[in-house]
């Protein structure tokens, strides 16, 4: 049995143990105390057949960092270069191109749909010769590490359902987030940290908010819920001891609590009490482990320079990118960033430049940083929003100023590392940047591909809830094999 399979075998056992006793994070240590050999290879092999075949195959990626660009950045100003739109500036979108596409209430009553080209210039970069907009000079510099997909498509045309679709595989309903599925499937690598962490930041552009249901565990156990990190004194809610209590005092206090709980355990024999004791120990360890990770003071000047000075300002996208690397490096399975402010219904040329300035350098830095550390191969990084933008102008149009409405039929994202082909551009849209003409990738396909890289057959990573076996990809989805390295 190869090492990876074995390692995953351990997780099955750990997970089964957790779910059987319905106890949480950190009980692994307790598990080994109660049932010696629970997590050793022999037990793993013996029980491997119980949950059929997890892992389904050896994984390429062990962890994911998802840089979500919340609000939906325009593909036409970033990665999908369309000179035709510049040439046809102001002409109406031909009905034959729109071809029955439904529009949001924001432009459906517009009398005309004047095409509008990118305000920014594009150039080709790297070996791959990928077209990248001028607003992303740093990303352009690492383009040979990226796989740019220009043919993502969705059905949703509004933010809430579109975001929910991306994160949970369904537009409506309280389903588990992608990160929760990964936590459920892979368990945790570091027992002092949650398996699924969430980091929020906001640019100056028009924003649309995020919702904690996006990192909800849905019907999975709440140990799989995304844990939101914040930039304040309490990076994890309630982590910090009260003023006037130092670590020694906390330790003493917890010793007393443990002693009392052990008396109770003796009297009642309920293993949940043993679990509670262990959870307090884990909480205590988290109180040290998390602030250590949050501390960037030990990062070298080169690293600070790489991410840019903003990375020292807690709560910025740059700081979150750096933190994402640290969390990931320490074994967090799924780090989910959200950067708000990409909803340019108007004032696009001005706002997008500002948004790009926030994210360009740190996003590229993250890739470079992971690569330098030899972690990019086993870390899948994803950059993108929830849908695309229309090729026609919303509202008043001038050369200096225009806006774009929501567009579900095509948009661009990129992926890097984690066994995805580097230096590749995949999928193609028509000259209007409106319809996909080659290699469409649906959200379900996107999810299937991510799970595939983590070692899962997306049709077999299921959870039975209210009589149905649910999966992230609902009832469809194909792995996009063309982009696998």
């Amino acid at each position, binding site marked *: 049995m190869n090492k990876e399979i074995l390692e995953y075998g351990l997780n099955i056992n750990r997970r089964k143990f957790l779910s059987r006793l319905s106890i949480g994070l950190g009980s692994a240590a307790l598990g080994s105390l109660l049932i010696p050999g629970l997590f050793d290879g022999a037990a793993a092999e013996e029980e491997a057949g119980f949950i059929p075949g997890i892992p389904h195959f050896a994984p390429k990626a062990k962890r994911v960092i998802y840089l979500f660009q919340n609000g939906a950045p325009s593909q036409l100003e970033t990665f999908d270069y369309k000179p035709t739109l510049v040439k046809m500036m102001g002409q109406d979108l031909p009905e034959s191109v729109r071809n029955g596409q439904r529009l949001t209430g924001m432009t459906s009553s517009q009398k005309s749909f004047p095409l509008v080209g990118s305000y920014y210039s594009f150039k080709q970069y790297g070996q791959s010769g990928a077209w990248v907009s001028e607003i992303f000079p740093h990303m352009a510099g690492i383009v040979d590490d990226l796989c740019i997909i220009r043919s993502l498509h969705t059905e949703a045309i509004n933010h809430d359902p579109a975001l929910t679709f991306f994160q949970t595989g369904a537009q409506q309903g309280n389903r588990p987030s992608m990160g929760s599925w990964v936590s459920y499937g892979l368990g945790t690598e570091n027992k002092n940290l949650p398996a699924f962490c969430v980091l929020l930041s906001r640019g100056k552009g028009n924003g649309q908010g995020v919702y904690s249901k996006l990192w909800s565990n849905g019907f999975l156990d709440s140990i799989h819920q995304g844990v939101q990190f914040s930039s304040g004194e309490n990076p994890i809610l309630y982590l910090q001891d009260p003023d006037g209590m130092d670590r020694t005092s906390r330790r003493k206090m917890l010793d007393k609590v443990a002693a009392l709980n052990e008396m109770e355990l003796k009297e009642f024999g309920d293993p949940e009490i043993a679990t509670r004791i262990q959870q307090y120990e884990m909480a205590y360890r988290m109180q040290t482990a998390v602030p250590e990770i949050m501390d960037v003071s030990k990062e070298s000047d080169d690293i600070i320079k790489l991410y840019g000075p903003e990375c020292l300002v807690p709560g910025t996208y740059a700081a979150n990118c750096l933190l994402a690397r640290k969390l990931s490096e320490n074994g967090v399975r799924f780090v989910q960033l959200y950067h708000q402010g990409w909803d340019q219904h108007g004032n696009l040329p001005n706002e997008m430049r500002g948004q790009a300035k926030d994210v360009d350098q740190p996003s590229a830095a993250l890739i470079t940083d992971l690569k330098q550390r030899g972690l990019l191969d086993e870390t899948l990084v994803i950059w993108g929003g929830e849908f695309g933008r229309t090729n026609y102008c919303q509202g008043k149009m001038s050369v200096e100023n225009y806006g774009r409405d929501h567009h579900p039929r095509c948009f661009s994202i990129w992926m890097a590392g984690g066994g995805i082909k580097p230096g590749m551009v995949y999928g193609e849209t028509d000259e209007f940047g409106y319809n996909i003409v080659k290699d469409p990738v649906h959200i379900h396909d996107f999810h299937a591909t991510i799970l595939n890289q983590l070692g899962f057959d997306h049709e077999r990573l299921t959870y039975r809830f209210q*009589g149905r076996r649910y999966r992230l990809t609902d009832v469809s989805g194909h792995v996009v094999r063309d982009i696998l390295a």
Partner: protein
Amino acid sequence: MKKIYIIGLIVVFAVLAVFAIRSFTNIASGDGASNEISYNFQIRPILSDKCLACHGPDANKREAGLRLDIAEEAYKALKEHPRAHALVPGKPELSELFLRISSTDTSYRMPPASSNLPSLTPEEIELIRKWIVQGAKYEKHWAFIAPVKAPLPKVKNDKWPKNEIDYFVLNKMEEKGLEPNDEADKARLLRRICFDITGLPPTPEMIDKFISNNSSDAYEQMIDTLLQHPSFGERMAIPWLDAARYADSHGYQDDNYRSQWPWRDWVIHAFNENLPYDKFVTWQLAGDLIPNATKEQILATGFNRNHKITEEGGVIDEEYRVEYVVDRTNTFGTALLGMTIQCARCHDHKYDPISQKDFYQVSAFFNSIKEVGIESTVGGHETFAKNPRMDITQEDLKGVLSFMNKSDTQGLQVSVMKDLDTARKTYILSRGVYDQHAAEVFPGTPAAIMPYADTLPKNRLGLAEWLFDPRNPLTARVFVNRVWQDIFGRGIVKSPGDFGMQGDLPSNPKLLDWLAVDFRENGWNIKRLIKQICMSATYRQSSVVTPEKKKTDPENIYLSHAPRIRINAEMVRDLVLASSGLLNKTIGGPSVKPYQPPGLWELATSGRGLLATYRQDHGASLYRRGLYTFIKRTVPPPSMMIFDASNRDQCEVNRPRTNTPLQALIMMNDPTVLESSKAMADLFIQNKKNPQETVTEAFMRIINRHPQKNETDLLLQYLTEQQVYFNSHPDDVKKITNVGEYKAKTTASPELAATMQMIQVIYNMDEAITKT
């Protein structure tokens, strides 16, 4: 402690003795009584889980034209092999089904590898073989047969039962070779009924009074008193608010404020008035359609308007209007019928006899509301309730809505139900997509559950009548099961929202049916049902778990001891506030915003609306019970969520119960807990309690029993240590006592700080947040 050990030993010996006897009789009788295979309990679960996805009710996904959920279909000649039959009663060797499930040839074996379903286990295959030998007889799904009261089963230990429940429970225990535990000690029993009936801990005075009351009906009296307490309605409201997905914001993107709390106040009121369950539900489903409906009855219909409503600019109106209708339909299915009818939105149900047509027929009852998909984007007062809505006036407060807690009703409106004058047409929606109209349908219910009588009006009032028809097999079972779940932590049917083929089978079917029928026959009387459960010997057992019991019945399905359950999120908060004396006992009114870590709302908001920033309340509003904590759907209160509360996104009938380090962090560091420690410590110092009294009383307030000697010793020692520490660390005294808005009446002394720390230890005991 010693006494309990001795009891424990006796129990162990008793259990061992029973084991010995059981295994002896098993050998003697050959265990021949259970040879008859039950289709409902042994065969259907296998067929449902492993076969019906492709050979079941969904015509579009049916493979080889074979259907295995209906006898006639399964006995027929196979479409693709006319000389073979899936089932030949009496003859497994001729039954294609048996041959295929037991084959070692993977190309022939069922279920096929492509289904991603595991093969049948040898035990399952053997069961199916036996069943075919015995005639392959089908039965109607148990949950679709109306319940009847079975005679009370015979039990060996006939001294034990205190009421009917116990005969059913003990009978199962005896079947499994288990013996009941002794009764719990009085203090723990009192704590249990206090939490189960009022959601609040008993006070030290209540405990001492109850312990010293030796009259034979002391326990019953206490239950009666608690049932009359207004906290009962608050306690009962919590699971109902989960099922009804009640919240204080609209949900979806901007997630602005909604003023639906008057409906929540009504729920509390209705439980306190002991409104019979049939009326309670009928008013909520169809209060507006009752002739000469009162404003109270109309307010009750807010139930069906609690779903999320979008305020996102640019959405397509019909897409969301349909979403609301679907939400009501799903909620009706899960909360009232315990059926997953939502599975039939896009296609026929894969497992249950509910067609897509059935789904849209049920949805037709909820499709004629005078509403739109998007009424307004984020705005002021006029957007807090959506049409149809009801004004609440000062006069209402003096009269029919006097239970509401608000002095000023200016502009107060609540979303309620009201139908259009002409019913909207309802269509089957292909793949569930809002604008893909297929055939037109009319109000109706799934015939497999119970046909909808022609005599019933085809509206929500008729639907309520259908629900409470004595022949309806589900309504009563589903509700008594949820009440049972609230008390025992696990329903008799473990899947309270799924009584269908894929749901869990009842662990004690006769008990479930007896309780359901008894509940209906006694006027759907909720308080009576709860009293009945609390009076049983089953309920009163101690929660000690012996290793033997843990081995025989690890999940305690057969209830041979009381379960130890971590109390729910709201109760954790209530315990902390009530024990410290900080609790504000006000009932009802607008929801409140207690302490919350900073930045949560601000970081996630679109920036629009009243709820873009968290404006924490002050003073008495900080100390309200957990169920009044403001629920903003997109950022629900974290301390509640960490203890597994519902985010109220959609109907939820079964909260998970986890045990995590984040819960430990809350008990260690949440300002509400720290402040309560301070308030309690302050009280003790004001009352000049000595250390021994301080420890005892703090323990009694939080754990609700007298501490044992080793517990007292440990806490006293800690108190002394802390006193020494703070004497030499005056700065820490200042810091640690500077928590929360509560101003201590005594000075910030080392004694205050030390006492606070000692109380903190007690709050962090497992037993504090556990029904034991």
